[in-house]
């Protein structure tokens, strides 16, 4: 495989409340910032991830394109998935096209405008699941219960994860700054308490990929070490929660194996619920020595559709700054960790 590196990463300061900016206005500053940073205003390929249902109307990516400066016309694509899958599409393209030496990848979401848990409820099987009115958090709680029952972990273990994530998030200028979980915190859907559920936020994230000579050129300008993608893979599980063992994540396990998820120092995991960290640690075989979500993770800010891309960006940023040599970024999609993407990065 051709060596491709993440050479720059930029994100918004995510907000829990609607600050009056539309998606394009959220994106424009971070795209402008990253163009300035890498010294490139035109990329060989552009790919984005977003969800029309968050906006409540079709074609959310059309106006977002205005933030890119798509003139003269650009080579561009879009996935109706988290931006992490847009990164994967760009990485695949760079593997074979000699003309693509740089790629701009972005993801954005403004969940403050609607109820994400209901939107994701509609994502379910339209015959047997969606008509029940079951929502994303209720399904996650079902998975949490299955995990607790099998592993013997306790609700306190989940709270500890939330506490650690929130503490880390308070150190991250881009995350929401949330208080430590309260002792008497109520359940959202039991066994998940309110702090076990990732707080949705408005935000966007941008990543620049490069290959060949461009990597050196850009690194010299930014002063950042390139984060080389050593492996990247994604897999899906079956959809219905009734046909799979919810306490494990076989798709994450396969993706981790294919991406070479060993010997990592830091893992940024797309944990929208506390218990998912435990399931993913197991699936990706991450030992206690692996630092998980030092950014605070999604439990400190969940800008839906950008959250997975941010995990990869955060994992890259550790390498950019020389804080780690080998890191892992993970993204998920679908109910109960149905789809998982793993990227292994190295200095």
């Amino acid at each position, binding site marked *: *495989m051709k060596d491709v590196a993440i050479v720059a990463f930029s994100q918004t300061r995510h907000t829990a409340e609607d600050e009056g900016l539309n998606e394009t206005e959220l994106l424009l500053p971070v795209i402008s910032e990253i163009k300035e940073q890498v010294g490139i205003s035109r990329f060989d390929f552009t790919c984005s991830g977003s969800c029309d249902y968050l906006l409540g109307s079709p*074609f959310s990516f059309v106006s977002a394109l205005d933030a890119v400066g798509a*003139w003269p016309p650009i080579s561009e694509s879009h996935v109706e998935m988290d931006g992490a899958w847009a990164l994967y599409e760009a990485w695949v393209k760079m593997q074979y096209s000699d003309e693509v030496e740089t790629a701009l990848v972005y993801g954005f979401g403004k969940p403050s405008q609607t109820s994400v848990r209901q939107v994701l409820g509609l*994502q379910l099987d339209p*015959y047997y699941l969606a008509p029940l009115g079951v929502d994303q958090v209720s399904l996650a709680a079902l998975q949490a219960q299955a995990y607790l029952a099998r592993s013997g972990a306790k609700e306190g273990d989940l709270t500890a994860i939330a506490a650690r994530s929130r503490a880390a998030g308070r150190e991250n200028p881009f995350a929401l700054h949330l208080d430590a979980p309260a002792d008497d915190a109520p359940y959202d859907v039991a066994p998940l308490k309110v702090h076990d559920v990732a707080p949705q936020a408005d935000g966007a994230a941008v990543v620049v990929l490069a290959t060949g000579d461009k990597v050196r050129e850009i690194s010299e300008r930014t002063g950042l070490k390139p984060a080389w993608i050593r492996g990247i893979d994604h897999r899906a*599980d079956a959809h219905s929660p009734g046909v799979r063992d919810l306490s494990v994540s076989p798709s994450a396990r396969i993706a981790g194996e294919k991406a070479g998820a060993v010997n990592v120092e830091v893992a940024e995991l797309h944990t929208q619920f506390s218990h998912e960290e435990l399931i993913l640690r197991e699936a990706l075989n991450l030992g206690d020595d692996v630092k998980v979500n030092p950014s605070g993770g999604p439990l400190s800010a969940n800008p839906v559709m950008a959250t997975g891309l941010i995990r990869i960006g955060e994992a890259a940023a550790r390498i950019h700054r020389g804080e780690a040599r080998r890191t892992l970024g993970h993204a998920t999609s679908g109910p109960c960790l149905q*789809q998982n993407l793993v990227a292994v990065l190295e200095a």
Partner: protein
Amino acid sequence: MGNPCAVIGIGQTHYTTKRLDVSIAGLLREAAGRALDDAQLTWADIDAVVIGKAPDMFEGVPMPEAYLADALGATGKPMMRVHTAGSVGGSTAIVAASMIQSGVHQRVLTVAWEKQSESNATWALTVNKPHNASLVVGAGGYFAPHIRAYMRRSGAPDHIGMLVAVKDRENALKNPYAHLKIPGISREIVEMTPMLWEPIRYLETCPSSDGAVAMIMASEDAAKKAPNKPAWVHGTAMRSEPIFFAGRDTVSPQGGKDCAADVYRQAGIADPRRELDVAEVYVPFSWYEPMWLENLGFCGEGEGWKLTESGVTAFDGDMPWNPSGGVLSSNPIGASGMIRFAEAALQVRGLAGEHQIEGARRALGHAYGGGAQFFAMWIVGSEKP
């Protein structure tokens, strides 16, 4: 260009107004199953799945790749969903091809579909939001003024659109999967139908269809084992431009010209009119045939309508466009682009049946979307490039 990529399996459903006898998964499985049969493969042989469709408002299932993962045999495999508006069918095929060209996978299943009958196309495409700064009434309301601008600019006579409307419907009679079949279709019949969005008449626009199309992309090794003749990918390209900006040419968008130039360059084509044998081009309103003839470089500016008028693009013309009947005859929106790509591949495989263009060796598949701002194209050939 990367590793060689071949199309070794193609499957389509019959396109129709309402497929009431199948679920969404059933519709996709029908196309995918036929593609697997064509390639003599089973679900287990597939490495990855790439799906595409236009807005999820059509069926009301946001990001349906989750629900469809196991329905398309993707358990334990990579599954992706592409969405680039009307061009999505083409873009999805290009993303699937890239998985082969990059050497990441050996056999990739790609499926595009729309089940428009579950809601209503106008609603799903132009959900009326607050804070609208413009008034757009369906796709016809958006495109009709641009067609008028083309007519004015090129001096094309009024009847050109009707010629295309008749030609594509005559072609559809040869295609077993086509939706609109109007035996005896004639200019008089088209002319009698009402103006929906003047200058667009009812029969100068596309139907609203349910349907799915699937293809199996394969590496050279995998293609060698395929029982039927493959189509080889000679080039792929995508281009996008903003929908509104000062000085934008909405009649012949730069994105379309650039995309065509890119795909011709990859395929080593200098003159598409002479070097291609057939084209499947996204023509949802009949006037877009002459408009795209110019935009895609089959003739000079202002000359497209003359090619149409003189029968060049007819089934027996020297540059047949849309022998399948095209989007004017079948339009499950999210699938329409991939149907163009698949029909181009069928032609160079020699498997297009009654609508086969004899001796077709190189074919163009084309799709566009949004405000004529997203483009996806590929060129396929009977020989490995």
